[in-house]
């Protein structure tokens, strides 16, 4: 069973780059274009980890994180903010909203994957996928 990761970013380029990098590691990827859609996808797919941009139309990433944390099933799910904003004051906003990590764009896929491993290996209830292992197809909403 693969890890399921939700990518929320209004840039199709970023989503495609992340999808390619994460699927290469065996992850199952769910995409959303803004915070509102991200919330909906998260409810529908119960993912293991969320990667979200901040500056997005309809609903920004900080607001989405706040809303996600109100859902019991996402109370402890790792949430990464992937943004071009380097200001530590903004990172503090992310922390207050409930995010676990602040990562600057552009991010190298290997660096991101290490952070994902670190976050997910810490969760003993989750299955761990060996890097490079052959991963069977996932079913939607599986954990």
């Amino acid at each position, binding site marked *: 069973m693969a890890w399921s990761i939700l990518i929320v970013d209004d840039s199709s*380029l970023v989503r495609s780059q992340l999808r390619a990098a994460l699927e290469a590691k065996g992850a199952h990827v769910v995409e959303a274009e803004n915070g509102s859609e991200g919330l909906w996808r998260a409810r529908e797919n119960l993912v293991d980890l969320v990667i979200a941009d901040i*500056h997005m139309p309809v609903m920004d990433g900080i607001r989405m994180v706040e809303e996600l944390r109100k859902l019991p099933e996402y109370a402890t799910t790792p949430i990464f903010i992937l943004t*071009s904003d380097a200001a530590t004051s903004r990172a503090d906003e992310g922390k207050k909203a409930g995010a676990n*990590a*602040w*990562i600057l764009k552009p991010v190298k896929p290997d*660096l991101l994957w290490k952070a994902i491993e670190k976050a997910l290996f810490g969760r003993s209830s989750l299955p761990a996928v060996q890097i490079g292992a052959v991963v069977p197809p996932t079913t939607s909403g599986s954990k």
Partner: protein
Amino acid sequence: MSGDKQVLVVDSANGALSFVMEELNDLGFRVIWVPTLAAALEFIEARPSLSLIVASSAATKVGGLEFLARVRDFAPDVRIIWGAKGEAPTATPAPTNRNSPDSLLPEPVRPDELRSAISELLAEHFYPPAIAEAVKRASLEVLGAVPGFQIEGGAFLVANQTALSDLSAVIPFTGGVSGHLMVGLTNEDARAVYQAFLPGVRPIRIDRMEDLVGELCNQILGRINAFFNERSVSIQHGTPIFIRAAGSTLRYPGRQPSFAVTLVRENTRVALEYYLAHFDRAKLQAPVNTRVLRLGEIRYL
């Protein structure tokens, strides 16, 4: 912007430098014209706030050296561009003598040479070198994901030129500094960069290329903003505004001067236009005092 954007043009009444005055006006200077060196000296002795003097050979035939010495006495920081008829085959860099002009331009003065001279002499009046470097560094950091991009020809103040291209994105920003960043690529160049960022994706539709331009603009602006964030200047910005202007060479009216950077990789060009409407120069003098995240750094919260 600084309040000393005033230029004195010394030219004979027949107006050999009339186009120069138009160029300077486009670059955002207030232009004052006087016909003789005597009138120029009278003006300078009143100690006005002045950035630049541009003098034509017609107006400087007699008394030029004395004039230069007097200018250096009254306004040692003012920069001087001197027209030279039949004396200098090409634009000449600044001689080292204190009483020499900063730049000699052959007459008739060519617009590109004039812009280049003004850029070299006055860039810091608009964009302190630290900001210029921050813009260039930010561009290279973001485009560095595709090896081989380099800054072409440095960066310069540009009149009547813009990053507007087939596909462009602009992000206005406000706060401690205000202005905009525009990134523009031709369709062909956008396709090449997209393929470099995300190999194997076919077809590359125009909306995907537009998205690429917007994301480049967003990420580069984020890196530039980090430079200001380090100096405790907060900046707010939104999402990119996309402009499709196929084959456009239109200028971006009312947004001059801009700090223009072109990044080049083989035949691919990415144009940037960074415009600052307002910033506090005093903030730039302060040491870096706020921690910001570095590229490749992950902050666990």
